[in-house]
């Protein structure tokens, strides 16, 4: 059905990667870039956790601390989490939909190649700052709240243009994904026969096209306020700093679902394969994804309960936020029902998928606590919030991606990975993750504020535990890298259908798949 020989005169070496329009090469580049950013953002936060190991200032001054937590947030969200998901989409969508490639291959290449310069722009002032040049990187927290972002040093300017470029990259990648899904499906594959992963990413891409241009407009206003004398966020000129909060969270809240939905699409495939049962409640899951997508753009101001909103506004944003737990509960029900009475086996992808389902559940439930406007006044900006969103984001963007990567790694490389080491990776990550973030719920409830390099003595033990946990978590990724390198270099040959319970068009292709996934489209009944 497809020929294995690449086109003649294909560039080799560095040029192959710079010029490639192939969805698999680009997917690989996205994933490698995401991994590099994960390690970068991880190293930054390990330095922060080292500082927080004991009370008092041990290793760094507060300005460096502020830069590190800010860069950690931006690097992880825009550099690691989103590109990792886009990498999965690039690799899998054409194979799952029965297409030769993504719909707009050159655009695909460009949307990747905007990322490295954008990341470079973000960290350049940090490196220069360490060398004593300039005022260091952006140090406002990843939310870049005005008026701090108007007054802070030149790192903010670098961040503004970096955000512009990262935003352009994800808009272009999203357009590509949507066009691929709408136009490149195999004949007979109606939208409601599409793999769940495609649905998840279709919703993610839609959200990104809605929110990223708004953030681009917002940071442009910050730039104008900083350098061109406008008063968007300055009350003296009739502006309002709260305007920035609205703009930012209009992007920032749906962003959480941007990170969740690709994983919510991928996990059912993994659960179904290792429970050896079909996906339960396909339609219910699709409709839930729609509901989440819609609700996610109308609830943003629950991040701003303490900004002086009217009571009516607080009530609306509180109830609409809580409403999201309904479609999410449907998803959880379907995930668990997929496992129900299945012939389960617990290979690494399954472990990570189950880790995602359980731990993300905790993140979701603690979110309900914060969604309560009255309770939020107490917990906002405390470590409870930090623990909540790391329980929401780590299980999704790392464990979920790991589940997907281990699931499809045999397909990508043609080799089975080292199962024993992969399981070790899971358990080290699982223990490290909980040890890092579980204590933070308690110090948060006890009143420890976030984003402060020093803390009161009574929080010392739990912070020590948290720092040890973060080191364990960091080590777990080194195991992952070792497993992947080992798998790329060799190992037992993978079958076309690498897992006996796996279903879908991608498993009809050889492992590794041919250069152009489906040169001639298969027909789906």
């Amino acid at each position, binding site marked *: 059905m497809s020929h294995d020989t690449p086109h003649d005169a*294909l560039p080799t070496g560095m040029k192959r990667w710079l010029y490639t329009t192939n969805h698999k090469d680009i997917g690989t580049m996205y994933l490698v870039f995401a991994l590099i950013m994960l390690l970068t953002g991880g190293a930054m936060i390990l330095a922060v956790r080292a500082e927080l190991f004991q009370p008092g200032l041990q290793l760094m001054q507060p300005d460096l601390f502020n830069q590190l937590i800010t860069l950690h947030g931006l690097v992880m969200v825009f550099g690691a989490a989103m590109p990792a998901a886009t990498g999965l989409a690039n690799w899998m969508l054409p194979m799952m939909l029965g297409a030769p490639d993504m719909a707009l*291959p050159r*655009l695909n290449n460009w949307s*990747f190649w905007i990322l490295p*310069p954008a990341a470079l722009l973000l960290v350049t002032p940090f490196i220069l700052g360490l060398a004593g040049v300039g005022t260091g990187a952006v140090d406002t927290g990843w939310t870049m709240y005005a008026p701090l972002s108007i007054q802070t040093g030149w790192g903010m300017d670098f961040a503004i243009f970096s955000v512009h470029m990262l935003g352009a990259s994800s808009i272009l990648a999203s357009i590509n994904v949507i066009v691929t899904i709408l136009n490149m499906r195999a004949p007979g594959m109606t939208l409601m026969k599409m793999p769940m992963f495609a649905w998840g990413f279709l919703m993610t891409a839609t959200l990104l096209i809605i929110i990223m*241009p708004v953030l681009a407009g917002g940071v442009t206003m910050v730039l104008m306020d900083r350098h061109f004398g406008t*008063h968007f966020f300055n009350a003296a000129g009739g502006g309002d700093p709260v305007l920035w909060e609205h703009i930012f969270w209009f992007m920032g809240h749906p962003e959480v679902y941007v990170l969740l939905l690709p994983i919510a699409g991928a996990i059912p495939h993994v659960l179904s394969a290792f429970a050896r049962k079909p996906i339960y409640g396909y339609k219910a899951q699709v409709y839930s994804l729609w509901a989440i997508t819609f609700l996610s753009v109308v609830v943003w101001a629950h991040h701003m309960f303490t900004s002086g909103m009217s009571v009516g506004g607080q009530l609306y944003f509180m109830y609409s936020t809580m409403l999201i737990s309904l479609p999410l509960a449907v998803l959880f029900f379907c995930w668990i029902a997929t496992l129900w009475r299945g012939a389960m086996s617990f290979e690494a992808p399954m472990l990570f998928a189950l880790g995602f389902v359980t731990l993300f559940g905790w993140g979701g439930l603690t979110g309900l606590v914060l969604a309560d406007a009255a309770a939020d006044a107490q917990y906002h900006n405390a470590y409870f919030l930090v623990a909540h969103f790391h329980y929401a984001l780590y299980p999704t963007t790392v464990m979920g991606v790991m589940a997907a990567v281990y699931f499809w790694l045999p397909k990508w490389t043609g080799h089975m990975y080292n199962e024993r080491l992969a399981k070790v990776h899971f358990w080290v990550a699982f223990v490290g993750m909980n040890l890092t973030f579980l204590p933070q719920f308690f110090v948060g409830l006890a009143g420890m504020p976030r984003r402060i390099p020093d803390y009161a003595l009574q929080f010392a033990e739990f912070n020590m535990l948290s720092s040890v946990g973060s080191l364990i978590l960091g080590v777990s990724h080194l195991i992952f890298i070792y497993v992947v390198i080992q798998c790329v270099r060799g190992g037992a040959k993978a079958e076309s259908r690498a897992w006996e319970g796996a279903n879908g068009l991608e498993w009809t292709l050889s492992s590794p798949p041919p250069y152009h996934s489906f040169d*001639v*489209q298969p027909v789906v009944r």
Partner: protein
Amino acid sequence: MSETQAHYYVPHHSHYSALLSAGVFLLALGFILRLNGMPPGVWSMLTGFGVMLFVLFRWFGMVISESVGDLYHRWEDRSFRWGMAWFIFSEVMFFAAFFGALYYLRVIAAPELASFDPAYTPYPNFTGAWPSSGPKGDPFTPMAAWGIPAINTLILLSSGVTVTWAHWGLLKGRRAQLVAGLAMTVALGLLFLGLQAYEYHEAYTELGLTLKAGAYGATFFMLTGFHGFHVTLGTIMLIVILLRSMKGHFSAENHFGFEAVAWYWHFVDVVWLLLFVFVYWL
């Protein structure tokens, strides 16, 4: 999806994206340096801009030659249409950010700032009336709607008519009508830009209406400025399409390039109508 077409055109490799990204990087870096008191940043900006122009010229040239070389058929055409439609939607959301800011500052922030207890606010005399440059802003005269802005509305609406007339000519195979319609559209676009430039000049020299004129000045210039920038891009795109029409690149069946630009032009038109109502008139 491909009932009639077995193979989708997948380009082998793309030389330009990495270079384009390098250009964008140099432009951004130079601008940042320039903004932070380092004049040599301008050289980085110019280099980056030059690289971007070069790449865009070559990249679009490549796409045009592939189109003329009959590499694109209905299946690819559908991808391009979806892609352009979603790109325009992203632009809609970009403008939505600035319209949202205008709404927020005018309807929520200004009345709230005026509603504080006079004994506890630094701005006891602020009334919150719109147009406003805020409690500490410089006085200015807002732009009147029924002068140049109304004429500009007529110009853009007429240009929407002329580009549609050109499209009819294309569909009926009348190239003279196509070219004439496009030429008129380009002329109307340029006329709009000229009047807009005159209006800006008047705002800065006569009315005291500048970027620094508080909430009104900021939203006025950002909204009309980004719109004007889009009109500029749209006019350049129309000129390219005009030249391609004269060369006979388009047929009644195959003219995605023309339609994409027409869609973009209508989008710019609609944004202007909203601008006219919410920025100038109300």
